[in-house]
């Protein structure tokens, strides 16, 4: 399945906006320290929601967006713009180098402007349709992160949006890489963002019994692969990467974090929210990512798991990894950085791709926190429970699985 004649794609800029830090350096440092970004929700009054904890981004975004402009953007767009700014700055690409039709935008969101939707729904009920803000639609729609980022940087190349729930960030980066592989763009600004810490979203996820209710101990609530896991913890934020055609990146002396070598997607065709037994759909995506790169399973040294901290995800993902990697599953390392950040839904895959790129470049694998001492006997892979680990791997995989049964896996290589 390895496709030949394609351009090579590398990651040359990182823009993480996460509950454990803004910017590549702060994010890497927090992962090494095993820092939790989970705390009591401050965005709204949680007296009526079962889950009262989340991973919020509480730093001011004023440095990235004029507060007067921000007023016309849903928070998911504000977070995306901050991440895009950070990624562009990190890449060293100038405004002139970026501008024009050889740079594209592919940013996704799992939901889009849910806070805007919630606010305007209240207006509708209380005051009628005649009082709905004219900004409602342009603030709420899920393609607006790509729209605003294209406007900010004057980039007019390929543009699209991925909306595959929790697989969005991975899908956006994978899809964006294809445009460069095919020669349709030299640079893609790609990633995902999410701002769903609102009563309607927390209420909805809570009532699915998807969220942890370990409200009295927030920092240990996101505990992927642990016996005591009781659901995921919602996070907000954005992750944007600069993807660049390899020869052009090399020619300008760019810092290259990693190469995007493989990408796979699939559908479980099983259930709206439950993963397929043994991660069958996930296996298809992982195998496709390996096959498109022409890489054997035993070459992979690290997997950044979807690892949500729900009973079924962690079980079926573990089974799926064992099915794809065989005996090698016990030799490679697996971790879930959601243990630190919480689950950023549409941004998750993007900040996790950033974590993988950093792991490959720095030779440090991020840990799964909150697992040591609470191992689940049914889950027996090496989840890096002891803390960040100094190990240089050549290939690393990043998994993302979504409601709707959509799966995505991205394979990166050290350069």
């Amino acid at each position: 399945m390895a496709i030949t004649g394609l351009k090579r794609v590398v990651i040359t800029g990182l823009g993480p906006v996460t509950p454990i830090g803004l910017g590549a350096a702060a994010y890497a440092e927090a992962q090494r320290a095993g820092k939790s970004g989970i705390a009591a929700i401050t965005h709204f009054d949680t007296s009526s929601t079962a889950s009262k904890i989340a991973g919020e981004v509480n730093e001011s975004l004023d440095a990235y967006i004029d507060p007067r402009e921000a007023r016309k953007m849903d928070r998911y767009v504000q977070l995306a713009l901050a991440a895009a700014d950070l990624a562009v700055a990190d890449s060293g690409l100038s405004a002139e180098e970026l501008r024009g039709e050889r740079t594209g935008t592919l940013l996704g969101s799992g939901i889009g402007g849910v806070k805007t939707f919630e606010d305007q729904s209240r207006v509708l009920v209380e005051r009628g349709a005649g009082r709905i803000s004219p900004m409602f639609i342009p603030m709420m729609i899920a393609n607006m992160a790509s729209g605003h980022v294209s406007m900010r940087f004057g980039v007019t190349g390929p543009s699209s949006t991925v909306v595959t729930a929790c697989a969005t960030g991975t899908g956006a980066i994978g899809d964006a890489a294809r445009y460069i592989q095919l020669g349709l763009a030299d640079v893609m600004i790609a990633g995902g963002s999410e701002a769903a810490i609102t009563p309607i979203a927390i209420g909805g996820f809570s009532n699915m019994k998807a969220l942890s209710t370990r409200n009295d101990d927030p920092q240990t609530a996101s505990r992927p692969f642990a016996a005591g896991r009781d659901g995921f913890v919602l996070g907000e934020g954005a992750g944007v990467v600069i993807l660049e055609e390899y020869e052009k990146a090399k020619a300008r002396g760019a810092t290259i974090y990693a190469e995007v070598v493989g990408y796979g997607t699939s559908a479980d065709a099983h259930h709206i929210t439950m993963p397929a037994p043994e991660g069958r759909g996930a296996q298809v995506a992982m195998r496709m990512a390996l096959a498109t790169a022409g890489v054997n399973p035993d070459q992979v040294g690290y997997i950044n798991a979807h690892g949500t901290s729900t009973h079924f995800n962690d079980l079926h993902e573990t089974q799926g990894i064992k099915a794809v990697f065989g005996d090698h599953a016990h030799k490679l390392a697996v971790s879930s950085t959601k243990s630190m950040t919480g689950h950023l839904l549409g941004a998750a895959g993007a900040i996790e791709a950033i974590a993988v790129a950093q792991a490959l470049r720095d030779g440090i694998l991020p840990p799964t926190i909150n697992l040591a001492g609470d191992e689940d006997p049914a889950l027996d892979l090496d989840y890096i429970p002891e803390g960040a680990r100094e190990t240089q791997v050549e290939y690393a995989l990043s998994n993302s699985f979504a409601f709707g049964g959509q799966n995505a896996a991205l394979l990166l290589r050290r350069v």
Partner: protein
Amino acid sequence: MATFDDVKEVIVEKLGVDAEKVTPEARFVEDLGADSLETVELIMGLEDKFGVTISDEDAESIRTVQAAVSFIEGKQ
């Protein structure tokens, strides 16, 4: 002046402009940079603030800060 100050407050909020730019002669589109959506937001904001109804036809004719002030004072 009371009406002017209240109108100014709505304009500053809805158009995100500096208060000193909001002079009686200032035109919403040409001087204050309002686009079509912001113009609608502004009219709705004025309706809310002053408890008045501004028809689409009236809204068309309200192109300056002074026009807004005069319209509202005429309604009160």
